């Protein structure tokens, strides 16, 4: 069943388009639906404000839609791209582009729905603060779109950079891995940036006088939540731009795919966990603006520890990318490399979310009572350190698979 390269490339382009818009539709729809639901509830509480609430909902939904629009653009480009005379490696580039854009759009679409929803609620609660609420919603939603933008950048690179200098094996795995790394990592960060945007918007309705403090806190919290997506993007760039001509194709292809999965998957948990912490911090600052200092400090400490598992995932990715493999077709060799990436990848999800939850509760408590700052930070660190254990076990099993097999 011999097909010319152009046929495979065309097929892959269509498949990539499908992934892009298919995954991309999930996030935007969920986010917008959530916003619409909260808007309905807000309108039922205050029917006379239905005008402003509806307007805010539509604006917020439009921003959440952007992720879906990016995904549609990439899909359109992939459907109509001219595949005549393209080398086979472009098939994997297009597939990776679709995955990168589609998966990133899930997180950002969902994340941008939160500020829209909370803005509608806030307007119903406190109508005079409309302007401040809308502004904050727009800023927060825009920040939440950043991971989708990262995904789009990587997708464009995959589609338009000339990869003919790379050998088909193992570069196909590098391109696919780059798409997965960026796409998966952006899911967590997208949601994680949206949660504090939402909480801060609601907080601004509750306490308009503390607007600056709330917004500062949200910006810091959201920015830190985006670090896992940055790690995913860096791994994607390394996979795209390192010259793979001098490495043995087998089993390095498995190492490259594993590198993409390791950082990509392990970034989901910390992204969401950091977002939960930042959300509680924004709400806490709204309740007690005087406590901003201890709240922000504890939030940063908690978020930093919650990011540990994406660091471990990044480390495993670096090992997979840069340690020279012995050329070998043995099945155990390449499966071990792939398995190491999968192990650390999935293993990073749980502790990331759990440590984020622990930090969220600690921050919430500190907002109520500033003086317990030091005690609660200590308890939070102990709890987070124990939650990390299974992440360490995953790291150990990954290292065993890499170095002992």
């Amino acid at each position, binding site marked *: 069943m011999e097909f010319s390269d152009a046929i495979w490339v065309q097929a892959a382009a269509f498949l990539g388009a499908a992934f892009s818009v298919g995954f991309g539709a999930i996030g935007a729809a969920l986010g917008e639906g959530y916003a619409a639901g909260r808007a309905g509830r807000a309108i039922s509480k205050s029917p006379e404000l239905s005008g402003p609430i509806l307007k805010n909902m539509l604006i917020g939904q439009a921003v959440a839609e952007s992720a879906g629009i990016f995904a549609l653009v990439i899909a359109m480009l992939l459907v109509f791209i001219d595949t005549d005379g393209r080398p086979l490696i472009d098939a994997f580039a297009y597939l990776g582009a679709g995955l990168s854009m589609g998966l990133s759009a899930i997180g950002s679409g969902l994340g941008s729905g939160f500020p829209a929803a909370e803005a509608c609620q806030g307007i119903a609660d406190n109508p005079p603060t409309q302007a401040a609420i809308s502004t904050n919603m727009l800023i927060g939603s825009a920040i939440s779109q950043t991971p989708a933008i990262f995904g789009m950048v990587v997708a464009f690179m995959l589609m338009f950079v000339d990869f003919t200098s790379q050998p088909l094996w193992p570069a196909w795995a590098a391109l696919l891995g780059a798409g997965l790394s960026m796409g998966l990592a952006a899911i967590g960060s997208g949601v994680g940036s949206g949660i504090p945007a939402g909480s801060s918007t609601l907080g601004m309705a509750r306490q308009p006088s503390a607007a600056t403090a709330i917004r500062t806190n949200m910006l810091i919290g959201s920015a830190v939540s985006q670090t896992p997506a940055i790690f995913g993007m860096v791994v994607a760039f*390394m996979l795209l731009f390192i010259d793979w001509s001098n490495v043995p194709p087998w089993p390095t292809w498995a190492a490259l795919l594993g590198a993409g999965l390791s950082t990509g998957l392990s970034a989901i948990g910390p992204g969401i966990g950091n977002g939960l912490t930042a959300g509680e911090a924004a709400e806490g600052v709204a309740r007690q603006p005087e406590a901003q200092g201890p709240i922000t400090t504890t939030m940063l400490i908690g978020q930093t520890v919650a990011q540990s598992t994406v660091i471990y995932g*990044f480390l495993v990715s670096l090992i997979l990318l840069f340690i020279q493999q012995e050329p070998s077709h043995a099945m155990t060799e390449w499966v071990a490399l792939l398995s190491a990436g999968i192990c650390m990848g999935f293993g990073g999800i749980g502790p990331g979310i759990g440590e984020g939850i622990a930090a969220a509760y600690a921050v919430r408590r500190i907002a109520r009572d500033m003086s317990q700052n030091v005690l609660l930070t200590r308890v939070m*660190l102990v709890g987070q350190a124990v939650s990390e254990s299974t992440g360490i076990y995953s790291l150990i099993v990954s290292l065993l698979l890499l170095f002992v097999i």
Partner: protein
Amino acid sequence: MEDLTIVPKWILTLGGYTLEFNSETLIMSWIVMGILIFFGWIATKKISILPGPYQTLAEVMVATFEQLVADALDEGNRHYFPLIITIFLFIWLSNMLGVIPFLSEPTKDLNTPLAYGILGFFIAHYAGIKTKGFKAYASEYVQPMFFMAPLNIIGELSKVVSISFRLYGNIMGGSIIIMVVSHLVYNLVLPPLLNAFFGIFVGTIQAFVFTMLTLVYISVQTK
């Protein structure tokens, strides 16, 4: 992009064994030691009621950490305070060193964080045995049931792995990100921002987290 796996080494052959030392890490560590010793000397040269700038800085740091240690540890164990503040200062200064051109962080090499992690581990367990006596210390490993002993031991060892790898990963990961992104934007605009974020911001927080966790491990063992 430079080959990341080439490491400058010093080789020493002793009695049939070949010892390899990472020269870059050692030299940077000596620089950090030199700065700390120099700072200690300057701050205490003329101790007076009206302090000069170095003495004020030293007093602020000492006061902050003494408060942290007093909160965490009981009376009998407060003498670990100098250790805690030294760990913080060394790691913090090490992380900052990467921002200065031509210098790199000693914590970029896994050996440094691992050394501090193992140090903290031994100190914590030594403090535990000294405070509680060996029997009480050993009986904790068989809580709540006898066959949990190997799992408790793995848990203790994983604490060392976690704090060391967290510090190493953050610092080395940050330096690689700075290198890759700077290379991609042809060193325009972004590198100072990245250095500020990953070098200064992350470096400070990681140093603080490492120190706090070491303190917490000591306090958990002694209570």
